[in-house]
């Protein structure tokens, strides 16, 4: 039976999930340093319990540990994301006014994201940035798929209202 205690299995699990753990914590608190630490801490716990956690359970194990790590401990900071300039690059013929508008839109989006409740922001970004399916996010957060859909719906609604100034 394969075991997380085996070096190569552990490394595989690490490579497969560390990035999402990092993003997950980053979306929650907007703190990059804490996100890096969370990855280390979560996998230390996995390593310490490697005999008890099967490779299939390893994924939800590290998310749970990471999630519990900073529960009520750190204050959320602004989540700063990078905006792909693909939109801009695709249309190099766009006018300066258009580019200005794009920049302005991105700023509004940033503000709107930061104005979201933490669980809506996390759900929204895990889906939009990391391409996680609702079912996956539901598993990470330990709630139903329906609850994630609700968060997603509310997130879209609030973002649009914030950006359009409704």
């Amino acid at each position: 039976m394969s075991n997380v205690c085996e070096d190569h299995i552990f490394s595989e699990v690490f490579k497969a999930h560390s990035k999402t753990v990092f993003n997950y914590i980053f979306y929650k608190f907007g703190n990059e340093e804490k996100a890096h630490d969370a990855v280390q801490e979560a996998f230390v716990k996995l390593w310490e319990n490697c005999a008890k956690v099967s490779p299939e359970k390893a994924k939800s194990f590290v998310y749970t540990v990471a999630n519990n790590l900073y529960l009520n401990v750190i204050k959320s900071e602004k989540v700063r994301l990078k905006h792909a300039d693909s939109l801009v690059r695709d249309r190099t013929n766009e006018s300066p006014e258009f580019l200005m508008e794009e920049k302005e839109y991105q700023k509004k989006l940033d503000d709107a994201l930061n104005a979201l409740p933490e669980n809506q922001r996390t759900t929204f970004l895990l889906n939009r940035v990391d391409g996680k399916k609702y079912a996956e996010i539901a598993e990470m957060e330990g709630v139903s798929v329906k609850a994630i859909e609700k968060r997603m719906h509310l997130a879209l609604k609030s973002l649009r209202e914030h950006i359009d100034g409704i």
Partner: protein
Amino acid sequence: MQENYLAKWLSGELSEQELREFETSEGYASFQKLKEASSGLQAPDFDADQALLRFKEEHMAKAPKVISLNPFKKFMRVAAVIAVLLAGSYFYINSLNEKVTTGFAERSEVILPDNSELFLNADSRISYSKKNWDNQRNIELDGEAFFKVAKGKKFTVSTEQGTVIVLGTQFNVENREGIFEVTCYEGLVSVTHKGKEIKLPAGNSYVVINGKQTTGTPKGTQPSWMNNESTFESIPLKFVFAELERQFNVKVTTENINTDLLFTGSFNNTDLNMALKSISTPSQTRYKVEGDNVLFYAGNTPQ
């Protein structure tokens, strides 16, 4: 429109009809824009390989974790054992009896925890429990000692030959091979010897020599050895010689002398020559000194 239709729209789960309806709704353009813009968002850079490297260096370095944690655990284990041993030996040593011993030609004064005084004659040993002194004033004696007991609870002197119990007094106990002597100088002592208890008032001696019990009356208010003198009243010569050995740290041998002859007299405990004369003259013997050896032999003529 169904519940959470925005979420369904993003995941492409709307029916065709619903989609058409949504596309004509008022906010559609905004949502479409939001969909495009959010798909271009990027999280901060995260290098999984580097994070794994860091993890391995910090947490999996060298050996399996069990061993990397071990040194401290082992240290704690050793520390715990040492702590237990230290605590144990502390209590053990505390519970040990106090011991005072005198060698040949040596005397010692001991102040007991209740300020009772105890003078230990040469070649004697006492032991008592300092911790339990308040509950039990009990002294084990082997040899000879003079006690000035402070008033208080029962004070017991245990010897191999008998037990002496007092309440507060001055008395001398001698417990040597073949001789057991208790002399009371003040107050009243109770002596138990071979299961028989007698009360010994001040100014009396209780003497057992080779199993034969006699009584006597001491001179003075404290034993003569306290004044550097050994006094004997009808005591077999061999005990006198034994005392001489103890007081001067010499070896006594005899030749043609009946050591059971009774001796009455005293000798000085500081001057060997004086002491030898004090013994030889009344016992009509002669002596020779060679280093630490003293030979007593029968004299032809009285000196």
